[in-house]
């Protein structure tokens, strides 16, 4: 009486399943690293009991480029293009955060026009990034690309504006230590005006399509809930934190680049679920448009780049500058030893840290819920792995 090894293994599994109490064998399913809903090379290992997620473990590092090490061998200016590649969907915000940190280290004063241009592009970047985030989120909910393509249209116009200003659409490399690389081209402001004029109607269209959609409500409400206490303790930031009701926005809390001069509001959610995150992003786009309007109206004249030596050697010391990137609190921690390159270059990646609570959010839901939750956190793998 001999059993095959397969039979023996299977029997062992059955015994384990029976003694574990629920009488069924869990299935481990790999989502990624190449999977339509993982937004990059991100791998999520979920253990499923039927469709219910029992455990979710993420495996990352597929896009690790060791930027923090590379940056230690390049001068402060040479490091700016790296920051584009960290979060390639919000390159402007990354440029900005790094330049702020470097300026703090070098003690550079930024001219007012540069500050206004920086705010303009940071907010345009937020509009583009949130368009991408919300579009892919609806896609993760199972829509057949329609909202995504509509939102891509807006993003496309923003990227066109980036292109006419600095020649690049995605990895812009536009900010410089002490200002921005180029002044605004003549055709930018009319394009921006047209964009600002068109956006309210577009947003109204999205809201008509999505906000009262019963299926979207059924898919996103009460899913991936996290309490404000847990969110703060898990260092979540950005729309994920604000959706729980915590009004924490670095543009208000720690204004940089003259954000204190602009009137805008911080939308917060109530229940901390996926739908609130979606709504917060929708509302933030409107606030960004408000800021853009004010920037265009009050754009000062003058130089757009402070006089910073290209071969700058900051004094030994350290700096930690943070901005509110579309994904949350994006910080750069630089240590200088007086040399031409940073002694230590560290990026505080909101995408990575927002994933801390992914396991807690997805356990107990279904596989489909886990994917919606992942979509609502809005990760960029370049920033997770760096």
């Amino acid at each position, binding site marked *: 009486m001999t059993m095959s090894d397969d039979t023996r293994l299977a029997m062992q599994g059955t015994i384990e399943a029976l003694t574990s109490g629920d009488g069924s064998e869990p299935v481990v399913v790999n989502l990624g690293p190449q999977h339509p809903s993982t937004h990059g090379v991100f791998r999520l290992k979920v253990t499923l009991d039927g469709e219910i997620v029992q455990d979710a473990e993420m495996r*990352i*590092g597929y896009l*690790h480029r*060791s930027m*923090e*090490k590379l940056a*230690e*061998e*390049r*001068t402060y200016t040479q490091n700016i293009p790296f920051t584009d590649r960290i979060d390639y969907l919000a390159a402007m915000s990354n440029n900005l955060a790094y330049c702020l940190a470097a300026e703090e280290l070098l003690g550079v004063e930024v001219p007012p026009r540069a500050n206004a241009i920086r705010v303009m592009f940071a907010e345009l970047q937020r509009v583009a990034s949130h368009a991408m985030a919300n579009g892919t989120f609806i896609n993760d909910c199972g829509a057949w690309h329609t909202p995504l393509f509509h939102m891509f249209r807006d993003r496309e116009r923003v990227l066109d504006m980036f292109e006419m200003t600095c020649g690049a659409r995605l990895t812009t490399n536009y900010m410089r230590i002490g200002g921005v690389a180029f002044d605004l081209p003549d055709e930018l402001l009319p394009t921006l005006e047209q964009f600002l004029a068109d956006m309210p109607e577009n947003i109204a269209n999205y809201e008509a399509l999505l906000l009262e959609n019963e299926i979207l409500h059924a898919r996103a409400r009460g899913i991936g809930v996290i309490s404000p206490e*847990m969110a*703060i*303790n*898990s*260092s*979540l930031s950005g729309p994920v934190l604000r959706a729980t009701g*915590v009004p*924490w926005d*670095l543009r208000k*809390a*720690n*204004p940089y680049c003259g954000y*204190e001069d602009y009137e805008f509001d911080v939308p917060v959610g109530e229940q901390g679920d996926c739908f609130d995150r979606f709504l917060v992003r929708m509302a933030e786009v409107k606030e960004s448009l408000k800021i853009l309007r004010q920037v265009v109206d009050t754009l000062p004249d003058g130089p757009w780049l402070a006089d910073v030596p290209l*071969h700058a*050697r900051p004094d*030994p*010391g*350290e700096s*930690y500058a*943070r901005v509110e990137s579309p994904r949350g*609190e994006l*910080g750069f*921690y630089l*240590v200088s*030893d*007086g*040399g*031409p*390159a940073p*002694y*230590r270059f*560290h990026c*505080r990646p909101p995408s*990575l*840290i927002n*994933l*801390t*609570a992914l396991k807690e959010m997805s356990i107990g839901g279904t596989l489909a819920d886990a994917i919606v939750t992942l979509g609502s956190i809005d990760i960029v793998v370049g920033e997770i*792995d*760096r």
Partner: protein
Amino acid sequence: MTSSYDATAAMEIVNASAPGAACVDDGVLFLDPERLVEAVRTLRDAEASDLVFLSNLTAVDHELHFELVYHLQSLDHNHILQVKARVADREDPSLPSLTGVYHGAHLQEREVYDLFGIRFEGHPDLRRMFLWDGFPGYPLRKDFLQMPGQVRAGLPGFPHESEENAWPVPGSVPQRPMHPNDPQPEGELVVAEPDGESEESS
């Protein structure tokens, strides 16, 4: 505007419950690694400091020691405090994990473990994160991939610059005195000298 929380005030809060666990040097709060968890929990729970949000956690390799840098943020008081702790042991650096105090330290400590090789005692899931298991070495250490003859990664100076601006000598990095309670490294730590005569440090 986020203000910097006064390090001295923080030191007093910590030392009130755990005497000697904190000291201030040059405006920076240093914590005793042995009592790090207790001290940080005190800072988090005290009404005056209220540092509930772990904004950033990273490490810096200062060659003689590792410096752990924590940026703690109070959301309601809107102030931020930079806290540091030092580990001198290069062979097997270890530090208590903050995951019990801040859940947000979970992935950041894994990252530091992965890239610096600093173990965090009490971390529930301390594995390499970006690099695969068995990857040789810890890339963000300064001596990673150090070549014979002391050729090392780094930028000695700007291109076309004179010799005098070469890479600063190790040890000229600003070194703050270690905390008196820090465990002292056993034996003498040999530091790489620029002339390429002595042995490597580890």
